[in-house]
């Protein structure tokens, strides 16, 4: 956010509220979560770092929303460096992947169910983003940003599809290994106990926690 605010100041010195309006316009409906004070917090940090200077407009009281902000030479350098920078925002897939591995290993939850819940959540988000696209004017730049969000969600949904298929197969293999491995003299009882415990966990899982609300009754 700091870099984006700096880069917007490169056009001309500006009031905080002018910057905020330009940011909101560029982000479209996705900018709705930006809180009004955030721009001043960011500007204060930039000023402290020597990247911007502020000047009070004549005859007005000393308040942040009356100040005009401008880039310092250091700020201009930082903007140039930011524009030249090539980055790739890393997707956070490891956490969910490890959740599935851990849930399955400890038999805490069915990974296929976890994938299903995640999928429903992403589909609802995709639905929201899509409705926002249809509601925006075709020439709005914010549509491009929404399109990017939609493509990301689609990629995530395809990955979840692959997870679902792999874990559907994996769970069967796991059950077989469990049954055979523990089928010795004393192991049988342990395996049966484990299976009973799993049934209990599954029962609680299905009964609790809003998951049932997602389902349409009767199927």
């Amino acid at each position, binding site marked *: *956010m*700091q870099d984006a605010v700096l880069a917007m100041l490169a056009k001309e010195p500006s009031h905080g509220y002018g910057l905020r309006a330009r940011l909101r316009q560029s*982000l479209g*409906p*996705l*900018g*709705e*979560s*930006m809180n009004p004070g*955030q721009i001043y917090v*960011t500007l204060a940090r930039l000023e402290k770092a020597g990247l911007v200077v502020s000047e009070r407009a004549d005859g007005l009281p000393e308040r942040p929303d009356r100040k005009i902000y401008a880039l310092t030479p250091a700020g201009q350098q930082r903007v140039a460096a930011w524009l030249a920078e090539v980055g790739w925002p890393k997707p956070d897939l490891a956490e969910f992947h490890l959740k599935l591995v851990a849930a399955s290993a400890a038999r805490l939850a069915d990974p296929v169910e976890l994938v*299903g819940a995640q999928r*429903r959540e992403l*589909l*609802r*988000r*995709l*639905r*929201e*983003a*899509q*409705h*926002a*696209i*249809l509601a925006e004017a075709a020439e709005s730049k914010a549509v491009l940003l929404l399109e990017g*969000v*939609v493509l990301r*969600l*689609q990629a995530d*949904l*395809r990955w979840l599809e692959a997870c679902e*298929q792999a874990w559907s197969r994996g769970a069967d293999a796991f059950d077989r290994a469990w049954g055979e491995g523990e089928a010795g003299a004393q192991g049988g009882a342990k395996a049966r106990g484990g299976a009973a415990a799993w049934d209990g966990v599954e029962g609680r899982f299905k009964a609790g926690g809003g998951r049932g609300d*997602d*389902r*349409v009754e*009767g*199927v």
Partner: protein
Amino acid sequence: MSESSAVIQVRGLVKEHGQGESRVRAVDEVDLEVPQGEMLAVMGPSGCGKSTLLHLLGGLERPTRGEVWVAGRRIDGLSERALARLRRRSVGFVFQAFHLVEELSAAENVELPALLAGGSPRQARRRAGVLLERVGLAARARHLPSQLSGGQRQRVAIARALVNEPLVVLADEPTGNLDSAASLEVLRIFEELRAAGQTLVIVTHDERVAAGADRLISMRDGMFVDDTRLAGATPRGLGDLLNLDG
């Protein structure tokens, strides 16, 4: 069963293809109700039986076992002739490959089912004009399908599916042959139909089409493995889709 408000009802539906050893169950004991005004999407891997299900719902194929009711009328035992009439009057079909008549103009393609159902030429022409306007193709009414882009052809096909004011529109991979811009045009039309209370069942691989539906069923090996209501969930807020801190 016939007293329910559901446009489509299905009970214990089974469809098997092939004989003896090579017999496969494409649809395996499926129950389903599609209420009036619902947009339902069905997703699943290739070969999961979703297209077969759609064909059974629209009377294009007959089930091996089970019941299919459309608008309170049981259709699985109807004669070929009665089925053809049902498909013409009560069901609108949209296919992946459009299936327009290449020798006819866009407007004539849309008029055709209205004429086949016994409508007057004047009525058919007026209705086609309204529908082509609705899908944004009024200016292309005289074009042949070969003179239209894929997205435009699919919009003509949607107009055609609507010409007899069907109780339900059944669509099989409607965006399967389209690029993302053309898909968005089709999505926009589906969203308008949904808002206008049209009942729709759409079989799709396209997450964007599925996300636009009120309800999503996932199919695997001929069975429903998930049935989720997407509409009416608490909105997360669009700002939640981006990280704007710092």
